[in-house]
């Protein structure tokens, strides 16, 4: 899914330990879907690195956000209403300004129960793209001459032929 550079995109994950199928898990989240209007809803069996058992439902959301160059401010402002609704602590939002993303987990007590009252256990946000997309290895846009030269030198040093050691 394509997003504008200034969009704040979030993935909110919910645990549905009582659901006996992905379909049941998605149907259980219907009230929240109507309220939050996600762009997409995904469901899968809980993975080994996720709290509890059962199914996980994930909402992909585009959040209203202020127009600003202040990355941290934009992420915190955009996240606040969603986190309040889901019962997550906005004060624990961990912002990475360089990666233009942020993440917050439910507290230990909530995690031990699988999530907050509505089942939310983690929200991940990123400016300009889906938080699930892999990080770019190269910066967006064209490289400057200096950046291109540095990249070429680095690649050459990585791939240059090394003498074969004799055993």
């Amino acid at each position, binding site marked *: 899914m394509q997003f504008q550079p200034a969009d704040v995109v979030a993935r909110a994950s919910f645990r549905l330990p009582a659901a006996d199928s*992905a379909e049941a898990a*998605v149907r259980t989240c219907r009230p929240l879907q109507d309220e939050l209007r996600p762009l*997409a*809803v*995904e469901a899968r*069996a809980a993975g080994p690195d996720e709290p509890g058992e059962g199914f996980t439902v994930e909402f992909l959301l585009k959040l209203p956000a202020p127009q600003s160059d202040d990355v941290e401010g934009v992420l915190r402002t955009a996240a606040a209403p969603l986190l309040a609704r889901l019962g997550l602590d906005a004060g624990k939002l961990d912002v990475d300004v360089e990666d233009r993303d942020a993440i917050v987990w439910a507290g230990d007590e909530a995690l031990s129960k699988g999530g907050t009252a509505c089942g939310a256990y983690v929200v991940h946000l990123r400016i300009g793209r889906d938080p699930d997309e892999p990080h770019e290895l190269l910066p967006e846009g064209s490289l400057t001459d200096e950046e291109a030269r540095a990249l070429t030198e680095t690649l050459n040093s990585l791939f240059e032929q090394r003498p074969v050691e004799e055993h």
Partner: protein
Amino acid sequence: MSTPAWWDELMSVSDALAAADRAEVAYWRGGAEDGREDSHEDDVPPVTLRLAALGREFASHAHELTAEQQHRFLGVLEDVLRTGSEADGTAVATGFFESLLNAWNGGFDLQAAWAGVGAESQACCLDLNQFWGIESPEWMLPRVA
């Protein structure tokens, strides 16, 4: 929520299955099948739910579908699993095939349709059986050449 690009191809296979999908969308919107006037085209159920409904319909109407229709329908889903996005593939697995396996558990003759299920889809069914702790019968297992 948006509808994936491959949906039209899936719906072109069978009028009965297409009608079942329209009914699912209408149920989601809480209105008649022709939809409320204020319903937006993106006001549709998550793909997982639509595919789960189609899994049930496929099972209950399998005897009305020709072999060619079954082959085409299952072929679209196989293509999604093979080359579609991870999200679409997960929806096919947890929506359609989970529902189809539940129907099998309820008496649907999955074995009769199994030959038309693609290799990736068959592997998906075996994974789901494993996840649920269900032993897959001999006819579901890949044949060793």
